[in-house]
């Protein structure tokens, strides 16, 4: 009998505190969103939108069991739905008046459910670490259980109903829309680029210009490529898979034995410096100028330009220095 707690604890970690279980929970949330979308009369495309979230929910729930070709076909279906303009949102918004009233009643306590998410995330990462498990996975599992904990705390604190909560979640989800799955698609694009040998091709092209033993020029090309691709595409997340497969891994990380975490994250934010300089990143640079009724629609970019160029140069120097030092 004294063995029981230990056994059930390890069972908990092998069955419940797993990524698959958290994917299952997220899938269930998506299935609830989908069912609410199907009956949302304020959404003119409720059928297409509902099917989109339903299929994504199925991929989340069964993704580890389904054959890959089926998942692949479902992904193509999702993207076709979005491409045909069938994914959209309802027009219902939360009442502003209600919010102000509740804000007075609950005060700062309304932060508790939101703060529960990072606290649980961090706690899981720590516990995984202490048990000798992967702390990266701990953070992700913790994010899932943090979401659940926040739901429970939120319901008890506000006295709201579960239905209301899921409606509000769906509102946020639909506000982002199909773009939600973009990082997943971009990572998949990176995998296919690698399988097709695109990375090797870009690498060999760059090698014809830059000698393989000139680390500084390679780092410069890496950060410049990242910034330029971001400036053209307006999205550093889209640029990253291309630069990582074509430049960073084959020309810097592999030959020089560089710490991959360090080099990769610095390369990503070298792209963020590009985002600050480009009208293509309209959400961040052009839309705000419109929101603020600025006379010059490029006013935000002009203000950010000296900052962006300086911090980009810092990326080049830092990456080069850390490779030499570490």
């Amino acid at each position, binding site marked *: 009998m004294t063995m029981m707690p230990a056994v059930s604890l390890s069972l908990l970690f092998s069955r419940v505190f797993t990524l698959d279980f958290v994917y299952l929970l997220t899938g269930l949330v998506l299935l609830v969103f989908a069912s609410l979308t199907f009956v949302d009369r304020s959404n003119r495309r409720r059928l297409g939108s509902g099917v989109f979230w339903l299929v994504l929910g199925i991929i989340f729930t069964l993704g580890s069991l389904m054959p890959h070709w089926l998942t692949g076909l479902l*992904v193509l279906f999702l993207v076709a739905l979005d491409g045909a303009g069938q994914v959209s949102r309802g027009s219902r918004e939360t009442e502003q008046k209600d919010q102000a009233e509740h804000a007075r009643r609950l005060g700062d306590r309304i932060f508790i459910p939101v703060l529960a998410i990072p606290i649980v995330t961090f706690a899981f990462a720590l516990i995984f670490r202490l048990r000798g498990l992967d702390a990266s996975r701990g953070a992700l599992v913790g994010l899932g259980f943090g979401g659940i904990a926040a739901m429970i705390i939120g319901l008890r604190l506000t006295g709201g109903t579960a239905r209301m909560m899921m409606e509000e979640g769906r509102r946020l989800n639909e506000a982002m829309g199909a773009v939600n799955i973009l990082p997943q698609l971009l990572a998949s694009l990176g995998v296919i680029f690698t399988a097709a040998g695109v990375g090797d091709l870009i690498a060999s092209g760059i090698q014809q210009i830059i000698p393989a033993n000139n680390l500084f020029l390679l780092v410069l090309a890496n950060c410049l490529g990242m910034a330029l691709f971001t400036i*053209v595409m307006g999205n550093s997340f889209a640029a990253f898979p291309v630069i990582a497969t074509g430049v960073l891994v084959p020309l810097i990380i592999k030959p020089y034995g560089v710490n991959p975490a360090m080099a990769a994250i610095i390369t990503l934010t070298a792209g963020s410096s590009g985002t600050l300089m480009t009208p293509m990143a309209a959400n961040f640079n052009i839309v705000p100028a419109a929101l603020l009724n600025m006379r010059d629609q490029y006013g935000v970019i002009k203000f950010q330009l000296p900052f962006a160029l300086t911090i980009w140069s810092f990326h080049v120097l830092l990456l080069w220095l850390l490779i030499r030092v570490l």
Partner: protein
Amino acid sequence: MHLEDLLKLSGVIIVVIGLALKLRTTLVVVVAALVTGLLAGLPLFSNEGFFQDLPYLTKPGQTGIINTLGRAFADNRLMTLFIITLPAIGLAEKYGLQEQAAALIRRVHAATVGRLQIVYQLFRVLNGLMGIRLNGHPSFVRPLIFPMSLGAARAESNPHEVPSQTIEKIKAANAAAENYGNFYGQNLSPVQAGILLVFGVMQGLGYVVGVWDLVFYTIPIVVASILLAIIQFSLFDHRLRRDREVRR
């Protein structure tokens, strides 16, 4: 370079042109993946299950593009896990989360326009650290930070009116503070989009990096972004002060 090599690059070109033309992003990315795979001579499906020996669709011994797409998409579900946090955040918003956050910011008494931007940027870095994803331009900058900045500028220039060119510069500074805090601060949490994207892409390339290592190595960049912003916004304050003296 051979022609077939150049054809392989068509996927990169499709992404660049498609996104530059503002075509639907999801569609552009998947078309680029399919075209790249097909032009590289990869089959659509792996030669197994009921696709076994199907002509045109499969090639012996090669993994299909659709199979690779499905596996990569399933492996990278972790990037979209944040959906599970939306019901709780939505509920909190209905019960006044944004109003309360606004009240929190209003309690800040920054004496100058520049200092207010620094405080707001730090607030956004803190949001990132807590794993909160939000676009602050519509929710904080327009309704809150801009009026507060204008108030600070008017208080300083008393009794003079703030000239319209100065107001334009203040607006630009507001938007910049949001972007600086958001872009660099978000990587301080292991469950944010950028960290998970890097984690997933590097895994696909055969490098298992820890999300906590990614967070660790972004710290110098975050510190640099804050220091640079402090310099830029302090210079901004200095210029506003000099402009006022010129007018007197």
